[in-house]
């Protein structure tokens, strides 16, 4: 009978070990660094400084608040637009029409493109001397030499469009998969009861998609919050920090300035925020509690 007592532990041990190595240890070490002054270029200053990094972050660093606000704006705009456009696309390619297979493949293709490559494509499109806007200027629309990534008024929409191009297919894929599981008799029954197209969408489709929407918005919100590759390569957080998100600020502090102590404190702030919103979001949407 002894085997019974250790067998379950032995079976979950690999999982626990992997979690300890890849989750607990990194988080704990970032937590520890966040309490230290730790700069690679000035090792003689490295020391335990308690909550000093957090004090500096909250009270003396306007860029922390600015980047946090930008992150919030970025996540809300990106996830909101991606959800709406993704849903629209999913509904369209869920209909039966000629060339549907080709349309589906085209809709999903941007998702297969990496962030850096997406940037490469869009930098060419936005190029002031050879891109889309130069062509428009030749047709008399706008000024020649317009640089959408250089103008503080247009850099945000330009970045949003770039990320939308890549992010919308993610929602479209997930929602389409869920759309296809909705039994057709539900729609037929609704139609018999006299429900129109809109009513069927609101009363049948949306409730059915709820879990998929909750899950995908949550995942996407976390990913967009942590999005570094696209913004870093497209704008570098500029001009003048206009597009600096919190993770981008972390990258600049830790990787470029080698200030790992302060960078870790910023990371902990991001971690806490994401944790809070994840829990809150799951609670509010009562994920997994559906009977």
């Amino acid at each position, binding site marked *: 009978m002894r085997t019974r007592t250790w067998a379950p532990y032995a079976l979950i041990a690999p999982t626990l070990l992997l979690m300890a190595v890849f989750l607990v240890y990194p988080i704990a070490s970032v937590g520890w660094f966040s309490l230290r002054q730790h700069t*690679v270029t*000035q090792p003689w200053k490295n020391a335990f400084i308690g909550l000093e990094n957090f004090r500096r972050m909250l009270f003396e660093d306007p860029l922390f608040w600015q980047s946090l606000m930008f992150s919030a704006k970025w996540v809300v705009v990106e996830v909101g637009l991606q959800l709406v456009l993704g849903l629209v696309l999913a509904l369209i390619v869920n209909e039966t029409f000629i060339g549907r297979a080709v349309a589906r493949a085209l809709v999903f293709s941007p998702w297969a493109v990496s962030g850096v490559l997406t940037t490469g494509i869009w930098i060419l499109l936005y190029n002031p001397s050879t891109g889309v806007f130069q062509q428009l200027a030749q047709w008399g629309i706008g000024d020649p*030499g317009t640089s959408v990534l*250089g103008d503080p008024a247009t850099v945000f929409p330009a970045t949003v469009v770039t990320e939308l191009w890549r992010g919308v297919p993610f929602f479209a894929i997930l929602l389409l998969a869920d759309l296809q599981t909705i039994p057709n008799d539900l729609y037929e029954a609704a139609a018999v009861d006299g429900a129109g197209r809109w009513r069927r969408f609101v009363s049948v489709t949306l409730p059915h998609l709820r879990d998929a929407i909750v899950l995908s918005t949550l995942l996407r919100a976390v990913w967009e919050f942590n999005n570094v590759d696209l913004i870093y390569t497209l704008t570098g957080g500029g*001009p*003048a920090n206009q597009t600096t998100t919190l993770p981008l600020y972390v990258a*600049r*502090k830790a990787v470029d300035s*080698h200030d790992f102590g302060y960078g870790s404190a910023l990371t902990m702030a991001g971690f806490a925020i994401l944790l809070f919103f994840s829990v809150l979001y799951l609670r509010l949407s009562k994920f997994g509690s559906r009977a």
Partner: protein
Amino acid sequence: MRRLLVALALVLSACSATSDGPTTITFWDNNGGPGRTPIYQELIKRFEAANPDIKIEYVGVPSSSVQQKYDTAIAGGSTPDVGGVTTSYLAHLVGQDALEPADDRLDNGPLKGKLLPGLLETVRQTAPDGKLYAVPASGNMDIIWYRSDRFEENKISEPSTWDDLAKAAAQLTKPAENQYGFTIRGGAGSIFQLLSEAYSYSGVEKFYDGGRSTVNDPRNAELVRKVAELYKKATPEADVNNNYTQMVAQFTGGTVAMMHHNLGSTADVMKALGPERVGAMPLPKGPSGKRTVVPNPTDGFAVFKGGKNRDAAWKFVEFLTSAESNGYWNEKVGQIPANTDVRGAEWIQKNPAVKMALGVLEDPATVLVPAPVYLPEYSSITKTDTEPLYQKVLLGQMPAQQFLDELAAKLTTAQQDWEKRK
């Protein structure tokens, strides 16, 4: 037990005994790429032919990531034997105690008295103990490349003051034809260029005066304002994000007529446009009429403490900085050779940019104003902290004086820390 000890001793002595095979040393090129790798490969071939007992393993590291690669190597104990370094991150490596001083080796070797004193000085300045942690190989200077053909077409003569330059830039700007007079480096690497423009204009002769940074001198601010005035009027709008690659592409692609960079872009510029369409001039002076120059980081070779074959490593460094190799290398890349025996070489007479730069450096009236690249915080202050602020100035969101005040305050604090540690 004793037998074990004997065996251990045998093993140890076998390890330390000189083996018959050649010694291999690793060399990191800090600016590897299609331009420079073949030059080093040729030099390594020559070195190995002359020293059959030493083999060189060449590793070309792109300059944009070299500092990070060195950091990782130091942290992981896998540094190369010899590494190419520039003074812009030398202090950073010295701070991590990674390099061996070169003073004794130089004094007792063939290079004694052969290296340009000015370049040796810029290397020494980067170390708190004043020792020489890298052997300088190559000097560089900020210059303005200009399209001599367009200047001729528009009957404009080479500007010698900043106001002349601004006038010429305005004249050469035709947005409808996608042509602009000047280009501003507003993105990565902007601050060093801005400071060298500012000091050339202001004539301020010291970077620090009584421990306080002179960066925010009103005359420097005047220049920053003048540069910002050019933005979008005589430069492309995209310049606010301009990094090195984009800037050079604009110039070599024919969009802009003048570009401030340094001798480092010689190969790119000449390859694209050829000597008949390009000229080089020093940075314009300001109203003071003085020639003040912020020297560009000096390129050189360092021997790492972690290497096992330091004698072989030094031999390689001495070879690379010998008159023949140093002349060959600098001729190919178009920079100022550190070895004074090279200065009479014919190719220098034929290279207008290098000749012009040497002329400026050798002119007794020229005052060198070295930037404090030795400060461990220098890179984080001038890049992470200040580059976005300069973009604000260009976009009209921040006054030039306030921008320089903030920069000066940080540089002053960092310098005071540095003085304390000396």
